[in-house]
């Protein structure tokens, strides 16, 4: 398959993620959208890696190592982020991020 398909899919996933982060108020959904953003980038990295490997570049696999890094960091982030959301829910009985505005003042 040509690489353009992967690029368009990746852009679509990224835009969905951005819109989700900007529009939604539910913390869990925002969280999922952030995962979506990360995975869009992962997809892009893997696609380009394959493309360059087909073209005969021997160092193309480096991109896939990046993907593993992002996955590890995302897993760590999920652990912390979910813990925060659980604590927010315990305190406010809600996961609406607009309620957290009260930190402002």
């Amino acid at each position: 398959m040509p690489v353009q398909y992967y690029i368009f899919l990746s852009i679509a996933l990224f835009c969905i993620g951005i819109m989700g982060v900007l529009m939604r108020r539910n913390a869990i959904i925002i969280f999922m959208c952030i995962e979506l953003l990360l995975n869009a980038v992962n997809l892009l990295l893997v696609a380009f890696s394959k493309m360059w490997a087909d073209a005969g570049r021997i160092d193309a696999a480096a991109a896939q190592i990046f993907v593993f890094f992002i996955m590890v960091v995302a897993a760590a982030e999920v652990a912390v982020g979910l813990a925060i959301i659980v604590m927010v829910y315990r305190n406010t009985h809600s996961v609406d991020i607009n309620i957290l505005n009260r930190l402002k003042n």
Partner: protein
Amino acid sequence: MINLVWLVPVLPLLGFLINGLGRRYLSKSQVGVVGSGVILAAFVISVMIFLEVRQPGFSGQVVTLFDFINVGRLQIPFAFQVDQLSALFLLIITGVGSLIHIYSTSYMHDESNEGFARYFAYLNLFVFSMLLLVLGANYVLMFIGWEGVGLCSYLLIGFWFKNASYNKAAKKAFVMNRIGDLGFLLGIFGMIAMFSSVTFSEVFSKTAALGAHSNYSSQIAIIAMLLFIGAMGKSAQIPLYTWLPDAMAGPTPVSALIHAATMVTAGIYMVARSNVLYTLAPQIQTVVAVIGLATALLAASIALVQNDIKKVLAYSTVSQLGYMFLALGVGAYTAAVFHVMTHAFFKALLFLGSGSVIHAMGGEQDIRKMGGLKKFMPTTNWTFLVGCLAIAGIPGLSGFFSKDEILAHTFEHNKIMYVLALAGALMTAFYMFRLYYITFTGSFRGTHEQEHHLHESPVAITLPLVILAILSIVGGYIGLPEVFGVKHWLAEYLSPIFAPSAPFIEAHHLEHSMEWLLMGLSSVLVIIFIFIARSKYVKYADTGRENTGLAKVLENKWYVDELYDAVIVKPLGMLSRFFQDALEKAGIDRLVNGVGRSITWGSQQARRLQNGQVGFYVFAMVIGIIVLFVIGLLL
């Protein structure tokens, strides 16, 4: 002994430090002993220095203490000049100074402990500055002393600083002096530019080497004129004389020491010291003589009708200083220094006598409310009378010899000036005896309570009076004129100082018969004027009548203060108000406040960006990324 000269100014400085720092802890007697003791010790050293200096053949010595300013080719060491002129001034300053310190211990006894110590600290600081002024071996050191005495004069005029009008008088003295000081400072700069030196010996030898009609005569004239402007301020000459009568706000011993005997003669000292510069600038010498004569006449005319005992003496001081400048202007440098010395004796005596009177009268200074003090205060009476006789120029007393020398030299120089100077001398005789008769003879015109309180002053006050009276009588015999068949001792003593300018002065001597005639004429006229004053004021009764015509103008001091107020003070005030309202408030303030206000406004706008909504931040971030992306694509 000469090498110990540094002790002379250091002792009063020490006294100043002890009294100034310990003013809370020292008792009055301790302060008095320290304050007077250091001056007395300085006097003893001065006498020893004088004895060494007066040996024939002594030439001036410079005692260098340390390097002071070294910039490029200009070198100004911290050095003291010990020669005939400075030794004589040392004697006057420390001698009269110690008498006045002793007098002050009694006069100022009513002050609080702290005020008493503050007074003595200032007085010691003054003596230190004055000694620095006369001892400095270059103009910069002289200027340091010059400023120091100005400061002390300010501090002591405003000694009773709770009185607003005294403070104003102090400020007036300070500002007037500053105007003169600016001239002095510019003169020093001119000297540095022209000679690249400010040391006396170098400046004078370089000037004398240039000679009378060099290409540089206009520069010399400018420097001489600028220095004379400094002298005008310090020695209270027209147009800067108005501060001195107001300076009488200070305690009376201060008036005696600073505003009669020593500080105001600093200008005379400076001109006499720089005699070469003036001799080589004859046009400036004429200016000096004319201003001196005009001041002498103006101040004497004002003194004719004043009713404040200290004001009369103040104007008399201004007038006598005018005589000294007249002498300097006609090239009679010795006569000027001679008159400085005799004047220091009899004017200090008169001021201290007036202080004794004021003390006895409980602070009253208006002579119309005195009268008949003769029988209450015998010592003050006879010493005051001696002072009056001396200043009037009765033959045999010190004032006669010095004043007659000035008059004789003026006669040689210019006959019209002589007539005017003689008229001034007659006015002096008249107003001094008017003062004497109104104060000491007739009947007492004060309140009953004051009369009950009248008493002779204690010995600490009368002793200096008696010593000064004796000096006023005998002080003139060091300068007997040559017509008496003796050598003029003072002229001979001072001749090394004035030697550099001697080649440029045309020597013309009066015939002895002429000199006798002038002497006789002035003596007879003075005695006649004293008798006129006697007939008019010996049985003075205060009628309370207002003065009219000329007398009123004189009483208001020729309206000079009002003139200065209208011509200088008011326009200056208007200018300041203009700058305050138009420039400061409308211009600078608005600009500064505008900058502040616009920054506040701008920050308030920018603050809205930080609204705490995470969504907004992310949105802004995305917008930013897109904008960067678009820019990247376009470029």
